[in-house]
């Protein structure tokens, strides 16, 4: 007997991407012990969901969230992963591969899954810093970095990738132009009408289109500065993204003498001409067809795994394909033929252009041969099922275009509500197009494995795990199966009862869709109460003010009373008035004016505040404009002690007087207050400057605290002496007063742009992490300067004394009382 145990076969996988690893996953399920598996990946990452790169760019997902198999997974399954080391040679005679680092490994079976490469057109200037494709994590990192430092991007290519890139960059805050060679967008997936509607919608969201645009050159010598089109037009930009298509990555196979055409030629068993070499994914060509979507690749991965597991009968056939565009709020679906191809074909169209809805069906021999949908895609799965199954639609021909509910009702069945519709779907109906998961597989898994959450269903069936557009249906199936036991997972908490959307989502949409008024936000985002409530209106007013400084007209009616009256309402309905005292410094003239105002208006109470200024309490509403006028006359302005705004800058006396002082903290505080007064924020903001580490100004419990040391200034952030005491975190140390101002402006602007309304800096810093703040304000000088510049820009419009305006007669009705003749 042979005492040496039979060795496992060696399976070597080239390409750590979506198709290759799906094949490995399937194989582990079918034949867990058959192979010793080694995976080479050119990218330095574990296997991730490439589709979701669009969501990462759009800021909807993080890179961590899109990992499919972590490094631990490889280890647990005994797979050797060699990431960041591409295979450069394949020796079929010796049955070995060699990597760039010089590693040579033998195989018994080889799986090539090298995907595609972005098409690189011969445009002069392509490859300069500031240019990239849209294919992998490195590209997305390039784009996000560019969005931090630059303002303008040009995307070349109006296909799925180009549009998703343009949208993502728009959401990163860039202004985006898209150059497309053809007259309409997505011309391979949509007909001209739908393409035009799409362009209109995206145009409305602020993307500038250059259709019929031939790119001649990328401008710039050191780095990209824009593009020039053949007709002479030039579009300036700091980032140029080329997304005009892909071609199968066949270099390795070709060099090894394998049969290649457009892709690596494979048979129905996904085998190349070499019986020991298989290939799957975008690198293959099967019966003359090459691939660009995952649905057929999952089918390939299934068949290839079966073959590798020993099932020689497993055969691959390309399923009918459908596409969707992953731009939130833009619903596009297409499958099959885009238009009638011969006189026997029929087209039925439906359009409601005002509502942005368009639908076209192509019929051939009494069956659905093509579907194009724009704006309203709820019935896409149903149409697609009719197409795939070749259903005879003669009985519902007349109403087919009106959608499932009408068509099935008209042909005798009752109009189903969405959950009844889901319940009525046959077990074979496909729910997840990306992963080819049908209803029966989902309901089966829920029942057999007792699954109760979306995540679990996703993990076990892959349904909704890729592009996510069928998430609603998968949840619907869970709800049907579990009844009341299914609790919908909590996403971002809704802002209030008027909307299902959370703060962050609403803010993103305001920018992305260029929404410029409260009614526009409420209408576009589907507020359930048309005028909102006292909770969402002030938040929206702030978000709009922050998003569109100088353009948005402040809505006083959406401000809390204090900010509308510019004074602090007290429990008896009177107000308190606090004039600004720059850095806590005052003089005889101001004190005299305050004393006179107190006597003249009979103000009952005067108190020194914790923020080093003087509070006049018990002022009646009608008195406010007169009180302000008299304070203005002595040079005093509003102290904003009433607002979600910059309140005070507390200081100690500093080196001018104090024997311990190291710097002039008072002058620093005054300079900070001059820069920041009048700014509106998600919540109140307090600053302080201490002249030495004894910290008499208590800078380490402020939102932004400055502590002078011998060699400069320490900057501290995120402190709070409110209900929850929190000491600051040290942000960094700087040496000059100019730097203190720049860092302060940048920090406050980041807070203004990212915190949720009524969230103070302390919980905000805790939520996003100090590292995040450091990355934007300290480590990235470009980002800091840009934030600071945006702060100063907003201040140009914010630094108007509201008291002076009202003392001069503005909004008089708010202060006066009407007295009718009785």
């Amino acid at each position: 007997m042979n005492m040496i145990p039979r060795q496992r076969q060696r399976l070597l996988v080239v390409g750590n991407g979506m198709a290759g690893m799906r094949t490995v996953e399937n194989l582990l399920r079918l034949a867990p012990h058959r192979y010793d598996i080694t995976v080479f990946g050119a990218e330095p990452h574990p296997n991730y969901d490439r589709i979701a790169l669009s969501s990462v760019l759009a800021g909807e997902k993080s890179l961590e969230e899109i990992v499919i198999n972590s490094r631990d997974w490889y280890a647990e399954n005994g797979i050797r992963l060699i990431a960041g080391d591409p295979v450069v040679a394949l020796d079929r005679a010796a049955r070995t591969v060699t990597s760039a680092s010089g590693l040579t490994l033998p195989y018994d079976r080889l799986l090539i899954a090298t995907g595609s490469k972005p098409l690189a057109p011969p445009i002069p200037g392509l490859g300069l810093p500031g240019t990239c494709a849209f294919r992998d994590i490195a590209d997305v990192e390039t784009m996000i970095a560019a969005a931090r430092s630059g303002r303008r991007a040009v995307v070349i290519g109006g296909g799925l990738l180009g549009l998703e890139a343009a949208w993502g960059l728009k959401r990163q805050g860039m202004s985006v132009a898209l150059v497309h060679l053809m007259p309409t967008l997505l011309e391979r997936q949509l007909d001209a009408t739908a393409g035009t509607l799409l362009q209109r919608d995206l145009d409305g969201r602020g993307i500038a289109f250059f259709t019929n645009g031939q790119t001649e050159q990328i401008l710039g010598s050191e780095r990209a500065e824009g593009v020039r089109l053949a007709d002479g037009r030039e579009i300036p930009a700091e980032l140029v993204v080329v997304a005009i298509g892909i071609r199968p990555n066949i270099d390795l196979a070709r060099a090894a003498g394998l049969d290649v055409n457009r892709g690596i030629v494979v048979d129905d068993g996904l085998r190349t001409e070499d019986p020991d070499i298989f290939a799957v994914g975008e690198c293959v060509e099967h019966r003359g067809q090459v691939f660009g979507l995952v649905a057929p690749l999952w089918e390939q991965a299934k068949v290839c795994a079966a073959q590798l597991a020993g099932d020689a009968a497993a055969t691959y056939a390309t399923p009918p394909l459908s596409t969707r565009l992953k731009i939130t709020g833009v619903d596009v679906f297409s499958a099959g033929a885009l238009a009638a191809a011969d006189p026997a074909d029929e087209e039925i169209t439906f359009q409601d252009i005002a509502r942005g809805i368009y639908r076209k069906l192509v019929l051939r021999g009494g069956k659905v041969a093509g579907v194009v949908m724009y704006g309203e895609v709820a019935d896409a799965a149903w149409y697609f099922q009719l197409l795939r199954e070749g259903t005879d639609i003669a009985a519902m021909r007349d109403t087919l275009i009106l959608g499932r509910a009408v068509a099935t009702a008209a042909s005798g069945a009752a109009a189903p509500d969405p959950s009844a519709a889901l319940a009525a779907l046959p077990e074979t109906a496909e729910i997840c197009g990306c992963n080819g998961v049908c209803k029966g597989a989902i309901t089966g898994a829920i029942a057999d494995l007792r699954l109760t959450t979306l995540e679990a269903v996703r993990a076990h069936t892959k349904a909704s795990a890729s592009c996510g557009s069928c998430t609603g249906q998968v949840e619907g199936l869970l709800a049907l199966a579990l009844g009341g036991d299914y609790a919908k997972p909590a996403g971002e908490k809704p802002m209030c009862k008027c909307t299902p959307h959370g703060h962050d989502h609403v803010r993103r949409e305001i920018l992305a869709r260029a929404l410029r008024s409260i009614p526009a936000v409420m209408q576009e985002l589907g507020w359930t109460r048309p005028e909102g409530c006292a909770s969402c209106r002030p938040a929206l007013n702030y978000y709009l003010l922050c998003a569109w400084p100088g353009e948005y007209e402040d809505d006083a009616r959406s401000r809390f009373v204090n900010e509308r009256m510019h004074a602090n309402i007290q429990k008896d309905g009177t107000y308190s008035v606090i004039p600004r005292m720059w850095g806590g410094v005052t003089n005889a003239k101001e004190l005299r004016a305050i004393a006179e105002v107190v006597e003249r208006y009979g103000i009952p109470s005067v108190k020194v505040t914790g923020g080093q200024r003087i509070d006049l309490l018990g002022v009646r509403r009608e008195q406010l404009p007169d009180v302000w006028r008299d304070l203005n006359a002595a040079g005093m302005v509003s102290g904003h002690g009433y607002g979600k705004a910059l309140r005070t800058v507390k200081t100690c006396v500093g080196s001018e007087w104090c024997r311990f002082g190291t710097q002039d903290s008072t002058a620093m505080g005054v300079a900070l207050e001059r820069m920041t007064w009048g700014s509106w924020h998600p919540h109140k903001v307090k600053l302080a400057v201490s002249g030495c580490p004894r910290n008499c100004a208590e800078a380490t419990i402020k939102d932004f605290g400055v502590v002078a040391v011998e060699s400069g200034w320490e900057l501290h952030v995120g402190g709070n002496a409110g209900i929850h005491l929190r000491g600051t975190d040290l942000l960094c140390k700087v040496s000059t007063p100019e730097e203190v101002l720049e860092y302060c402006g940048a920090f406050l602007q980041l807070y203004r742009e990212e915190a949720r309304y009524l969230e103070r800096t302390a919980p905000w810093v805790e939520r996003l992490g100090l590292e995040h703040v450091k990355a934007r304000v300290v480590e990235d000088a470009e980002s800091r300067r840009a934030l600071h510049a945006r702060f100063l820009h907003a201040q140009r419009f914010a630094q108007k004394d509201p008291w002076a305006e009202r003392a001069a007669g503005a909004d008089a009705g708010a202060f006066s009382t009407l007295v009718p003749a009785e």
Partner: protein
Amino acid sequence: MELGIMDRAGWMEVCGVQDIPRQGARVVATAAHGEVAVFRALDDTVFALEDRCPHKGGPLSQGIVHGHAVTCPLHSWVIDLASGEAAAPDKGCARRIPVRVEGGRVLLAASRR
């Protein structure tokens, strides 16, 4: 015309509708009702309530108006403008003052009945 004047018996004119900001209010001092908050909703409907929240007497005139409701500035009770009732779970009612709009003028009942 005649009728109009006759009609006004028992009412006092306080201001024009356009003197009240949409989604806002004006305060009217009356001998008959004390301080009254006269509201104008976004749809131009006019309401009048005593300017005291049933909770702790906050000035309702200073609240945020949304639809036909106002949120009190002191403790965020939501008061229905038409009925004066506080929205559940709060309980209480602000006194309603009879109000009419005629030819763009706002009229309040001249006396307390």
